[in-house]
């Protein structure tokens, strides 16, 4: 287990380092001078030079790189060009909104997807199976903003059950009102992914010898399914869910826009439109951190779910 952990930790560090380097390069391959782009064509030479100095763009490239790397690790991500506030503060302020949304969508996805996938696998090639497969394929065909717009049209405009703009105030009811539609919109798409991977993982496991043995010795069918089969199908499910979280974070950008919900997505689009380079750098660092952390948690849960992983 220790070697496994060390290897995964090393990979996490490599990923973090590689992505930070990618971020650094990406921000610098922009055609033209960022300072010029930020200030526009009318800016004076002095103003541009001053901004270059403030952004550290006058330093040699290697020096810029070390400053950026060390800063990123220390949590010093510079100051937003637009608000003048430290980037990390702005990011941390909206982070809970995005985490809340993605976690809740994932929970909805798992609660719907796992039973649906198990059910379809047990009834393989029967009508239910086809229905589940087609509807999950349809679900993952949805661009997240289209599902969001349809939900908004039906449940906020045609039926006035939910507010058109999601904003939260203190009470639980208000929280529910603000998060229900965005989370359902993303949750249904997540459910489609979870259903598919659960179904195929279960199909594989159900054909194993130990499932036959369990049935032969008289273990009740639903115990076989939930305890013997699903337990063994969990590894591929966890892998896909872990990978899917990356997609989910990407999708949440679009959902946040449709529902005018604060979060990383709105911050990102704002930074993109304003060409707020320090903010963009910081956002990419936070996305990287989230992804690396999720991957690490996924790996750890393998050992938790399946004791055999420790042997590797």
């Amino acid at each position, binding site marked *: 287990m220790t070697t496994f952990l060390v290897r995964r930790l090393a990979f996490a560090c490599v990923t973090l380092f590689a*992505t930070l380097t990618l971020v650094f390069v*990406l921000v610098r391959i922009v055609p033209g001078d960022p300072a010029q782009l930020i200030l526009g064509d009318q800016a004076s030479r002095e103003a541009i030079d001053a901004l270059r100095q403030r952004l550290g763009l006058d330093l040699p490239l290697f020096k810029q790189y070390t400053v950026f790397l060390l800063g990123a690790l220390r949590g010093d991500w510079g100051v937003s060009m637009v608000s003048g506030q430290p980037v990390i503060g702005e990011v941390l302020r909206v982070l809970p909104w995005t985490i809340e949304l993605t976690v809740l969508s994932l929970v909805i996805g798992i609660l719907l997807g796992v039973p649906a996938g198990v059910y379809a696998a047990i009834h393989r090639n029967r009508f239910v199976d086809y229905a589940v497969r087609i509807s999950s394929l349809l679900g993952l065909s949805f661009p997240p*903003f289209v599902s969001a*717009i349809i939900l908004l049209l039906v449940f906020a405009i045609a039926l006035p059950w939910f507010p058109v703009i999601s904003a939260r105030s203190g009470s639980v009811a208000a929280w529910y009102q603000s998060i229900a539609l965005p989370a359902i919109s993303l949750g249904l798409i997540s459910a489609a992914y979870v259903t598919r991977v659960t179904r195929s993982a279960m199909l594989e496991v159900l054909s194993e010898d130990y499932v036959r043995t369990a049935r032969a010795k008289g273990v009740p069918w639903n115990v076989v399914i939930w305890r013997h089969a699903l337990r063994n199908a969990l590894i591929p499910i966890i892998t896909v869910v872990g990978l899917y979280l990356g997609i989910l974070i990407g999708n949440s950008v679009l959902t946040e826009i449709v529902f005018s919900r604060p979060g990383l997505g709105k911050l*990102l689009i704002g930074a993109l439109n304003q060409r707020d380079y320090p903010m963009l750098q910081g956002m990419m660092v936070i996305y990287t951190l989230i992804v690396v952390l999720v*991957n690490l948690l996924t790996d750890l849960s393998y050992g938790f779910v399946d004791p055999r992983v420790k042997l590797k």
Partner: protein
Amino acid sequence: MSAAGPSRGALRVAAPSPFAYFASATLKAFNTNKTSWIGLAVFLIVVAAAILAPVLAPFDPNDQNILEKLRAPTFEHWLGTDSFGRDTLSRLLYGARISLIIGVVSTFAAMVIGTAIGMLAGWHGGRLDTVTMQAMDVLLAFPSLILGLILVAMLGPSMVNIIIAIALTSIPPFARIARAPTIAVKEREFVDAGRALGYSDTRLLIVHILPNILPEVLVMGSLWLANAIRTEASLAFVGLGVKPPTATWGGMIREGFENILDSYWLALVPGVAILIVIFALNLLGDGLRDAIDPKLKGEA
């Protein structure tokens, strides 16, 4: 993997006429899962509509008519008009062209580059393999939509840049799918035979290995074409699409969303169009994948 018998259709040694073999294998794959035919038919209808847009479109997609703005669907404007009085149906038809061109070109580029990377990594093995695939894993882990957004914003929203961004983010899955079969195939006798005959690595890879992994790569291509079309629409929806007034589906949804309270169909119509295309491609790719997946083959 090593005990690949003759039942592994996807990896079978190329028959005397590779084309005839490929055609019959394709037909068989399609017939295994009838939904593939539906997906293909719907997709081809959309392609035809896009190609024939100048003939089919009742109006010029950029013709503004302020007096006719935000009309609900009528006999003259089947799908209504937008806030500039432009005909939604005509814009939808022309928008299909942008979606398909960007989707097909970027997926094709990713397919070629990714397959080449995966094959080379699998073929050479060792450190090159480890480093390349590690890099692919890093790229795969990062949310591709966000990477795409940032790339397009940095490079500027033009058709070429959007294609570059989508292609770059779609490379890793192809590298992965090409690598595993390359490793499996390179141990086979016919590769040894080729090597004994003094064939170069390039020849072995292109003439003898590529045909064996092509089915899987092409199926992957149809699934990632769906993804590319969705990404293009997502970029356009947040304002990073091909510049207006060019009609794009994502852009139409973006504009329609501004008038969602009174003209809901403006956002709904292109949204459903995107959904139909992606669903069709997924039906196509998913059915074919089941058919060529050696693991599922024996059971079906």
